[in-house]
């Protein structure tokens, strides 16, 4: 499903060159739940951003669903992200000026779907994460766990094949974190979503199929 070959990412300034990722090769199968761990600054999020086509590698090749992504235009990349990928972030990244339902509808705005269809899909996604009673709330009126559930609903509303989660439980207590993990596991086992999750938490990582460890930009496990 996802194939990374010799991925390198170098950040350059006028004086310093930092190797964020060094020759990473990785295959993720369809329906797999993979976690990425490593100390802060080891390149976990950079790797996730590259897989999510939010950042381009300095070297190497990425194939998603047998499609090479390196020659895609900005518009094609955006379209690809919209259709194939769903993102969950540690700090939720909800738009505070939009209600919960509107936040969840966001990915569908970049597709050709009617308002009623968007509303239907967003409501269904919120129901899956157990938040159908909060559709008219603003994000500022929700707890951290609820916010993350909204973010998950937003990630799955477009029915993407791949979900990329960047420390989804990082801002939550363990009980809330476990609830979020339950939802992710449900999406993986029941809905068949391929999930790649960056985490600092060994316990959360243990709940995934496979663990990839990074250290100083290199894959060590």
């Amino acid at each position: 499903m996802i194939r990374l070959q010799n991925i390198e990412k170098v950040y350059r300034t006028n004086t310093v060159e930092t190797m964020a990722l060094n020759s990473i090769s990785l295959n993720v199968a369809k329906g797999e739940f993979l976690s990425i761990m490593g100390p802060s600054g080891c390149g976990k999020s950079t790797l996730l951003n590259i897989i999510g086509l939010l950042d381009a590698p300095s070297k190497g090749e990425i194939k998603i669903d047998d499609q090479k992504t390196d020659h895609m235009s900005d518009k094609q990349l955006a379209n690809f992200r919209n259709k194939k990928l769903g993102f969950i972030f540690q700090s939720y990244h909800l738009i505070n000026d939009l209600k919960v339902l509107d936040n969840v509808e966001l990915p569908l705005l970049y597709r050709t779907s009617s308002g009623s269809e968007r509303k239907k899909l967003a409501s269904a996604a919120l129901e899956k994460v157990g938040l159908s009673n909060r559709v008219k709330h603003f994000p500022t009126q929700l707890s951290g766990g609820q916010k993350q559930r909204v973010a998950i609903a937003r990630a799955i509303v477009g029915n993407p094949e791949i979900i990329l989660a960047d420390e989804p439980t990082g801002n939550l207590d363990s009980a809330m974190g476990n609830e979020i993990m339950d939802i992710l596991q449900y999406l993986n086992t029941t809905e068949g979503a391929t999930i790649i999750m960056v985490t600092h938490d060994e316990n959360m990582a243990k709940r995934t199929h496979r663990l990839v460890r990074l250290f100083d930009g290199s894959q060590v496990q």
Partner: protein
Amino acid sequence: MIKHLFKLIWNKKKQNFLLMTEMLVSFIVMFAIFTLLVYYYQNYNRPIGLDYDNVWNLGYGSPQGMSDADSIANFRESIKQTIISMPQVEGVSFSDANIPYGDANIGTMIAYNKVNWPSEMYTADDNYQKVLNITLNEGRWFSKIDDASREKPIVINETFKERVFGRESAVGKIMSDAAFGKGTMKVIGVMNDMKDKGDYAGPQNGYFRRMDTSNTGGGGIILIKVKPTADAAFESRLYKTLSNLMRNTSIDIKHMDKERTKRNTQLLGPIIVLLIIAGFLIINVALGLFGVLWYNINKRKNEIGLRRAVGASGAGISKQLMGEALVLSTISLLVGAFFAVQFPLLNVFNIASGTYIIAIILDILFIYFLVLVCSLYPGRQAAAIYPAEALHED
């Protein structure tokens, strides 16, 4: 997407209020400026309605030592004959001080069917029309046959005719002097409007009454139509001749074309000052808009990153930000247009509705243009934001 933009704007109404107020104020100020510019432009394009070339205005003071009407009439006739006998002169006409491009304005009120109409009043003799080559649309100019007329003859201009009589013929209609109650007046002709107050001045009601050359009161103006060959030497000779004839009074010769230029400059002066002020205001508004939009982008980097992650392209982000600015300006323009539309509806300042409508349209286009220009660069900057980078900023 439009619905989404409206939702976003509505939910951020407090933050957007200032920006919308700025756009509204700009609209109102620019409406005033555009109205003035359109009004001036339309006036400039109207026919002048008189031939000012080679016309000299000779101002003279009150003749001294003549108290009876006959002496005054004879005195004026001898002056006229002296001037007309000169080979460079094509025509001579007596008028009061309210002449084209002059400094005098004489306003009065005349009534028709018990309705009072404010009007500019001119006094001229039988030759005035020929000297200034004024076109008559109806009826005739003053002549000897008016000597025996029971009602005072008047010639009104086209604007006055249209306002009072509409499409009906005005000739033969009886009006009355509402200001002084000096009897009735009969319309004997309708003349083209003449832009006697300058090329940028608007049309106004005007009527001519026939000059009584035996009138003992005050001085006046003699309009002299000269041949194109009339030069400074002739002007000097004319001055000397008339100075000898009018020993006890002062005379002064002016050229109507120069007076016209002077008058136009006087009218344009305030407009130029206003345009300079407007220019500064536009720069101010543009900088304000640019600043607010720029600030918004920096404040919304997370949101931009998120939108990019969920499927927006760089161009889509740019379009969205410009769209938001356009929606905000549309709301401001709707409010502004509501107030602006009251001007033609209530016929404020007696300016034609068309002038206001054109000004509103130009104003709307201008504000949209300004908003587009000001949001173009911030929009492009937003499009260039790298999603991974934007999502990392908290």
